[in-house]
């Protein structure tokens, strides 16, 4: 099978691309459903439970509702940009997901720029948000757009610096190598705890999730950049946000949580229970399957964290957000980088 993939790069690329598109698109509704259920539980409510068994069809109803809604473009919008903006949010998040190895050596494509591609593409999403805010011809939207651009640019720096620390451990930008390095030397979260925390915090900010959702904040900006969006255009923003969340979780898993690998003691458990011996030395169908399972489990756990944090922490004030970004995260990340570099150099000696 692996051979077949290698022999038919075009066909396999298409298949991978379709899967890449289909899988996150299918995850998002589920994610929305779980977000609603989890937030309900946190608030001692029941959550959606009317549509289908235990409300499982609620996402479907949501989608249908969104599709059925009237598509409104307010008077005075800059129509071209207004229509473009949701796509600009949605597409980069999808593309960034492409380079994440969801299983053992399993990614849609593996450019030699590696993770830098993901970060670069991912940061395009800021255009979508600020375009949306600009084109809506609404002061709240504009404020939301401005906030999001400032916020994302600020936190991108911290995000990248934190990511650098993980890359430096492996000495490469190839994510598969990063994962293998972690198999060999232990997860980066233990070796780079500061980097991991910084990456996590910055990824919250990058995805505009609470406590950093200042671009949307309903109470002040009535939805911010997407105030004036309805129907599928709004749904695209929504999808973009959730896919960005998945991408960020996947990156976090890959960079700091061992990616598709598992620590040896867990592998023994799998061996004991399922009678499957997994060794990540070579790519087989079995290891690939299990690597996908491990990867999905870790990503799901991180997604749960995203949701959990959202319904626990209050929103930051905007100046607090900027202070945290510029005065804490970036200096700490730089210091971390410097120490890491020094240690690496010293150890090489």
């Amino acid at each position, binding site marked *: 099978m692996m051979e077949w993939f290698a022999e038919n790069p075009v066909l396999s690329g298409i298949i991978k691309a379709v899967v890449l598109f289909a899988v996150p698109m299918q995850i998002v509704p589920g994610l929305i459903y779980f977000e609603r259920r*989890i937030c309900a*539980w*946190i*608030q*001692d*409510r*029941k959550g959606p439970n009317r549509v289908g068994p235990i409300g499982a069809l609620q996402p479907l109803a949501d989608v249908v509702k969104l599709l059925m809604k009237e598509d409104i473009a307010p008077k005075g919008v800059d129509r071209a940009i207004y229509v473009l903006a949701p796509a600009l949010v949605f597409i980069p998040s999808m593309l960034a997901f492409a380079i994440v190895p969801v299983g053992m050596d399993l990614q849609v494509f593996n450019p030699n720029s590696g993770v830098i591609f993901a970060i670069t593409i991912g940061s395009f999403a800021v255009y979508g948000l600020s375009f949306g805010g600009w084109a809506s011809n609404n002061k709240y939207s504009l404020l939301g757009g401005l906030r999001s651009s400032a916020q994302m640019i600020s936190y991108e720096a911290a995000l990248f610096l934190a990511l650098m620390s993980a890359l430096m451990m492996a000495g490469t930008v190839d994510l598969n190598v990063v994962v293998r390095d972690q198999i060999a030397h232990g997860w980066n979260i233990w070796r780079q705890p500061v980097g991991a925390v910084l990456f996590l915090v910055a990824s919250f900010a990058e995805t505009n999730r609470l406590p950093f959702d200042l671009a949307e904040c309903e109470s002040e900006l009535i939805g911010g950049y997407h105030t004036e969006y309805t129907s599928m255009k709004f749904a695209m923003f929504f999808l973009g946000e959730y896919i960005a969340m998945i991408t960020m979780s996947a990156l976090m898993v890959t960079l700091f949580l061992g990616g598709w690998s598992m620590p040896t003691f867990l592998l023994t458990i799998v061996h004991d229970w399922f009678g499957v011996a997994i060794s990540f030395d070579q790519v087989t169908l079995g290891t690939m399957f299990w690597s996908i399972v491990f990867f999905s489990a870790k990503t799901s756990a991180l997604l749960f964290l995203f949701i959990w*944090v959202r319904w*626990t*922490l209050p929103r930051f004030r905007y100046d607090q957000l900027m202070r945290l970004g510029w005065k804490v995260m970036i200096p700490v990340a730089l210091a971390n980088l410097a120490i890491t570099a020094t240690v690496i150099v010293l150890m090489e000696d």
Partner: protein
Amino acid sequence: MGHDAHAEPEKKPGKLGLLGKAYLPAIAQGLLHTLGHIVKWDHNTLNYPDEKRAPFPGYRGEHRLTRDEQGREKCVACFMCSTVCPAHCIEIVAEEAPWPDREKRPKIFNIDMMRCIYCGMCEWACPCEAIELTEVFNIPVRTRAEKIYDKERLLSN
């Protein structure tokens, strides 16, 4: 400020320390708290249309005009409710009552339920116990006009 001996010592916010400033312990504490709620699995809400909470005694829902033993409205059109109403949602036009034992009755008695704030002052002000708030609270309608309840509607509530 000066040095007033009797001045209350000013309370200063406690120093947070580095860890505290990073908020991480507090965040962890908060996350544990919410996790506790997830695990607790105890709901305060009902499956609303299927299950209905019995209104608490004294719940203030939609109004009702009461009738006397002979089935006539008790209201004597004294305007006390419309006078006391803070939302000015009660409109009354009085007329002479056709009955020998009563002098005055409302020709028109309208309550604009969209303006009503359900404060219950009308019930409180009524000298004849002619208006009272029921426990009915969920009567959806399609137009605003339907939410202006006239005398017949209020008497049938």
